């Protein structure tokens, strides 16, 4: 079997996007037991400077087309070139990061090749399916996240899936395949360059919850933007950062970039302190892999207590100031 991973570059640091590395490692873990192959496809301008990291996680070959005119996303070019690579290489599986650009390209290519695509998978595995031989089992939450569905593309190839960044953890061991970068000689039709980029401004990333060991998160139960400052105080005292549930973001207590959950960031810190978060499945999807979860909530029946390791049933507006008091004392 063969898996192709669509490789993206992070324009803010010219490195491979983390999700591309995570998917390469995932593809390797699925292909290795079957003696399969993992290839990558990069279509853009200038290979990511640390492309060799892909080979460390099991990539066999990185096919690439780099062209000045592809510095920013030209969906029609990428669709054509990637479809051609797929027809040539005939992978069984094609994986994309569920990034803005991945979500732009994956459905175009799936539709162009008349095959199936499953978005935002949380687990992937290859197994026998009826009399169809080895197929990709694409597992993802459905219907608002209350059920987990396994989705199969029974007939068509390639079987395509997108996965969000941070969902598939990197293995601790690397494999150190030799670097094998294959430049694509083909070119593309000039007319497919349909988007003119008048300006491109890199976003300032103020918050990076993925890199924080301690996340203090607040939900609707925090009650006001004013109260939310308590969480910032607690996070600062602990050397962590502040996250929020979707409800807290919708109420305007916190910025969207702090949102943790199915539609926000997926985090797995050493410690996650959930304050006034009931623990809806959409939120849990973004934090339940945390090493330790502490819940502070007024409602003893809140589902957050079902996944928490430590908890206080009480009013966070009284509990957190007391915590801050004792934290000072401990210091």
């Amino acid at each position: 079997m063969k898996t192709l991973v669509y490789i993206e570059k992070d324009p803010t640091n010219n490195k491979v996007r983390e999700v591309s590395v995570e998917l390469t490692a995932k593809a390797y873990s699925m292909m290795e037991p079957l003696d399969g192959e993992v290839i990558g496809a990069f279509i853009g301008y200038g290979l990511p400077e640390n492309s060799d990291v892909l080979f460390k996680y099991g990539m066999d070959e990185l096919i690439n087309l780099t062209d000045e005119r592809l510095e920013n996303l030209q969906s029609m070019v990428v669709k054509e070139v990637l479809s051609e690579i797929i027809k040539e290489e005939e992978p069984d599986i094609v994986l994309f990061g569920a990034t803005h650009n991945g979500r732009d390209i994956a459905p175009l290519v799936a539709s162009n090749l008349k095959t199936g695509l499953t978005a935002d998978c949380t687990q992937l595995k290859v197994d026998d399916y009826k009399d169809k031989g080895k197929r990709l089992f694409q597992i993802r939450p459905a219907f608002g996240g209350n059920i987990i569905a396994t989705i199969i593309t029974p007939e068509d190839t390639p079987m395509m899936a997108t996965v969000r960044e941070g969902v598939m953890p990197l293995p601790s061991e690397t494999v150190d395949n030799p670097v094998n970068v294959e430049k694509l000689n083909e070119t593309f039709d000039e007319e497919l360059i349909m988007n003119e980029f008048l300006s491109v401004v890199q976003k300032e990333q103020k918050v990076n919850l993925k890199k924080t060991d301690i996340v203090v998160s607040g939900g609707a139960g925090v009650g006001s933007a004013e109260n939310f400052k308590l969480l910032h105080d607690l996070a600062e005292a602990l050397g962590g950062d502040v996250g929020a549930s979707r409800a807290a973001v919708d109420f305007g207590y916190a910025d969207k970039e702090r949102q943790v959950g199915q539609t926000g960031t997926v985090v797995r810190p050493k410690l996650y302190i959930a304050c006034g978060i009931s623990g809806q499945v959409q939120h849990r999807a973004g934090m339940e892999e945390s090493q330790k979860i502490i819940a502070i909530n007024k409602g003893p029946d809140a589902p957050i207590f079902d996944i928490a390791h430590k908890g206080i049933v009480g009013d966070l507006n009284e509990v957190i100031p007391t915590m801050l008091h004792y934290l000072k004392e401990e210091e």
Partner: protein
Amino acid sequence: GPQTAEKLDFNQITYVDELLEIDDEYLVVQRDGEKQMETIKSHFPMLLTVTSNANEPRYPDSRKMLQYFRADLADNFEDEMQEKAEENGWIIPVLDAAELGLEEERCGLTGSPTRVHNIKNIKLAGGDLEIYSDKDEGIKDLVKDIMKDYVEVE
């Protein structure tokens, strides 16, 4: 969105945050490129997908809601009502696969390349929950435990 663009053979711009300029031939939009904000000019035809920032939908017009309160499929009107329904614009048009030139075997649930193999209800992991009192003593113990495990003491 993108699958529709592909089927129409249209160019697409996804994650559009704002429409900046529109002309007979082209438009200029701001796209949220996740790591960067992009100002893109592109010619028609094209398909746009928008983010929740793109528009604040207005409330429905209450006069129109009353006017079209009875809107329905043609089959659901009694014969004697057909004419009146037509005059008032109450009939919701229905297109079928043939009119749209679609291959029937690629339509609907059976036409989808993907199948739901199975579904499972989510089971909660059920941790070893340790509850601390919300009184001073309990909070003090919790803070001590956090300090011990997670905060590096210099």
